[in-house]
């Protein structure tokens, strides 16, 4: 019988723009009209199509300038009564605004001026004169946040009610060169110095609470946002940063960069329609407009679509070669020759050595950001292998204090370790189907160059088909019925490593394409069809190289930050973790592959 799909083919969705991880990730900066007078460290307020740029450095003739943006061009408007720069505060709209604080012409100012759409009038001063402060709100309800009265910096916050300033609760962290966005009942303060920080605090109308910091610490940046649930932060110092981050009420995410990185710029608008203007980079007149699409198609892994704008078929995928390593949380104990299992955000490491002969029973649990000590193993050991998840796994065999090899297996149930059925053969340096379960797994190889494989069914170990090439300290990936053994050493741990790789189909091992660089004691992660083998030893030397397996062949990808031997890994080929290793370390590294939209070549 004919199948309709085979005759007519598949329908592919047509989209005018690429899919995106979020509305804000789909946004981009475009150039806007240039300021008439280039300057930095002025105050910005308004929206993307109706903004004011008030004052700015250098203090002097340009320090009193006031320009208005109409969405296309800037026009000079009435000057401030008191010229000022060094990041004064500003709040309001093009028809009703206030400017407050700053520096100029010869002192730090408390002075506040009110704008009615045509001229500035002096109104009541801040209680505490300051420069480099954050300002947000409206002409009748504004906040003045932090800043520098003269060293040291202040945490002071004041609230404006349309006629006077009242001191309210302080920031938790005093700072200057910060940015504030939102209203008097829902605001966000981010960044600042000293020291340069990504520290972020959320204001609920009464108090500031510290929340997740920006990914990139910086000061002298600018922001845009209507309240503390959705805010952009862009630009900043040190140097002239182009980074833009979006805060979604919980965390910051990097999105499209400014075209011109700069600091001491001004910003206004909302997180979906923002404006960046002025700043440190000559001629200091650049304006950029950020627009996030009102509607967007959310990225879905594996989605294929036709982009009618670029006339290309695209697929959303995680291309393993595009991944990178970043430092992860440090373990509590520096450890090498340890075993591990789990995933990048929920991993266990157990056993290992803190030095020659110092075999350990310690165990730690990772939650994606920090490690916590757990109940210890019953038997100290090194050179074990790990299988399972952070709530159900095994540490298998190894070498215990005194030098004896052991067959003992301990089971992790999420809260403690219990001894369970031994393997048939006591040895160390085995590989395992690390993604196996507590009822289905295999272990293979071992010291000095064993080929044996044992299969676990939840109650007993059974010897099954041997590896073609005996070895120890190899990479082990996959599950009981489809696993991979990569590299390793056939010289008892004192050799120079092997390149061979074997694939397990549930009953026998088959040689497949070799890794590029012989090694042993690396960190492995992934499955039989997509895996990662990282770092390790060539004998006397350490390797930082990482190789990725696509089911057919190995490709060198981004190197680890610090090369280690007798380290261990966990996770999948797109999200993995490398834990500890020798020389003994507390450090871990996290491998992440972002989603990307890639063009498909149709022949």
């Amino acid at each position, binding site marked *: 019988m004919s199948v309709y799909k085979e005759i007519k083919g598949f329908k592919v969705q047509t989209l005018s723009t690429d899919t995106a991880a979020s509305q804000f990730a789909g946004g981009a900066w475009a150039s806007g009209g240039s300021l008439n007078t280039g300057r930095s460290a002025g105050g910005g307020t308004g929206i993307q199509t109706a903004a004011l740029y008030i004052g700015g450095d250098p203090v002097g003739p340009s320090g009193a300038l006031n320009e208005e943006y109409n969405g296309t061009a800037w026009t000079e408007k009435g000057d401030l009564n008191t010229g000022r720069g060094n990041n004064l505060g500003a709040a309001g709209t093009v028809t009703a605004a206030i400017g407050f604080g700053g520096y100029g012409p010869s002192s730090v100012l408390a002075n506040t001026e009110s704008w009615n759409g045509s001229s500035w009038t002096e109104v009541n001063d801040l209680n505490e004169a300051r420069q480099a402060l954050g300002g947000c709100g409206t002409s009748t309800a504004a906040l003045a946040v932090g800043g520098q009265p003269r060293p040291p910096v202040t945490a002071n916050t004041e609230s404006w009610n349309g006629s006077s300033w009242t001191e309210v609760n302080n920031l938790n962290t005093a700072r200057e060169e910060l940015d504030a966005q939102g209203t008097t009942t829902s605001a966000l303060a981010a960044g600042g110095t000293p020291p340069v920080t990504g520290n972020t605090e959320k204001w609920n109308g009464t108090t500031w609470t510290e929340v997740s910091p920006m990914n990139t610490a910086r000061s002298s940046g600018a922001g845009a946002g209507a309240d503390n649930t959705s805010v952009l932060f862009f630009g900043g110092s040190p*140097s002239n940063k182009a980074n833009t981050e979006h805060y979604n009420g919980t965390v910051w995410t990097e999105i499209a960069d400014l075209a011109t990185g700069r600091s001491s710029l001004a910003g206004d608008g909302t997180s979906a329609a923002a404006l960046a203007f002025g700043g440190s980079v000559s001629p200091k007149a650049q304006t950029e407009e950020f627009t996030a699409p009102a509607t967007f198609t959310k990225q879905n892994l594996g989605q294929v679509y036709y982009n009618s704008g670029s006339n290309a078929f695209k697929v959303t995928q995680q291309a393993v070669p595009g991944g990178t*390593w970043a430092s992860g949380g440090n373990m509590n104990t520096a450890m090498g020759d340890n075993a591990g299992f789990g995933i990048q955000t929920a991993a266990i490491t157990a056993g290992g050595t803190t030095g020659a002969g110092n075999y350990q029973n310690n165990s730690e649990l990772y939650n994606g950001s920090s490690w916590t000590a757990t109940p210890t193993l019953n038997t100290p050991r090194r050179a074990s292998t790990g299988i399972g998840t952070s709530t159900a796994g095994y540490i298998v065999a190894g070498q215990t204090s005194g030098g004896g090899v052991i067959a003992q297996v301990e089971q992790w149930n999420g809260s403690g370790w219990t001894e369970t059925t031994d393997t048939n053969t006591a040895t160390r340096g085995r590989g395992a189907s690390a993604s196996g379960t507590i009822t289905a797994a295999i272990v293979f190889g071992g010291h000095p160059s064993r080929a044996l494989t044992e299969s676990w069914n939840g109650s007993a170990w059974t010897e099954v088909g041997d590896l073609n090439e005996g070895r120890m300290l190899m990479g082990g990936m996959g599950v009981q019925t489809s696993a991979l053994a990569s590299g390793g050493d056939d010289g008892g741990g004192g050799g120079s490593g092997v390149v061979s790789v074997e694939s397990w189909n549930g009953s026998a091992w088959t040689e497949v394409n070799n890794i590029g660089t012989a090694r042993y004691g690396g960190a492995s992660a992934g499955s039989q069809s997509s895996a990662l083998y990282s770092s390790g030893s060539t004998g006397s030397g350490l390797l930082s190289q990482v190789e990725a397996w696509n089911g057919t062949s190995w490709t060198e990808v981004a190197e680890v*930050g610090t090369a280690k031997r007798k380290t261990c890994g966990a996770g999948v080929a797109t999200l993995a973790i490398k834990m500890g290793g020798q020389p003994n370390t507390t450090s871990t590294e996290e491998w992440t592959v972002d989603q990307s939209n890639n063009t498909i070549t149709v022949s």
Partner: protein
Amino acid sequence: MAYKYCTATNWGKSFFTHEERRQFHLSGHPGEVWVVGDNLYGDQWISKVSGAIKSKAEAQAIVTGEIEAAQAAYDALSAEQQAQQARPAIYNLP
């Protein structure tokens, strides 16, 4: 490629980020020595981690000293223990 050399203590999460790994070369070595790509981003990272700038010779001396200490530890092991691992080798920083 030109490099800068510094020492800095890895405090863990965010010590180096994925974005930073895309922006400049970074490799860690014994003795908390870091080889950093000599560009604007590398400079920013050194500043972020309060890295203590070293000359290449100074950095190499730290790394060599650490490896020599590891070699001494290896040499003190029994023959049986030595057979289970290779003797660390001194190498040159890039």
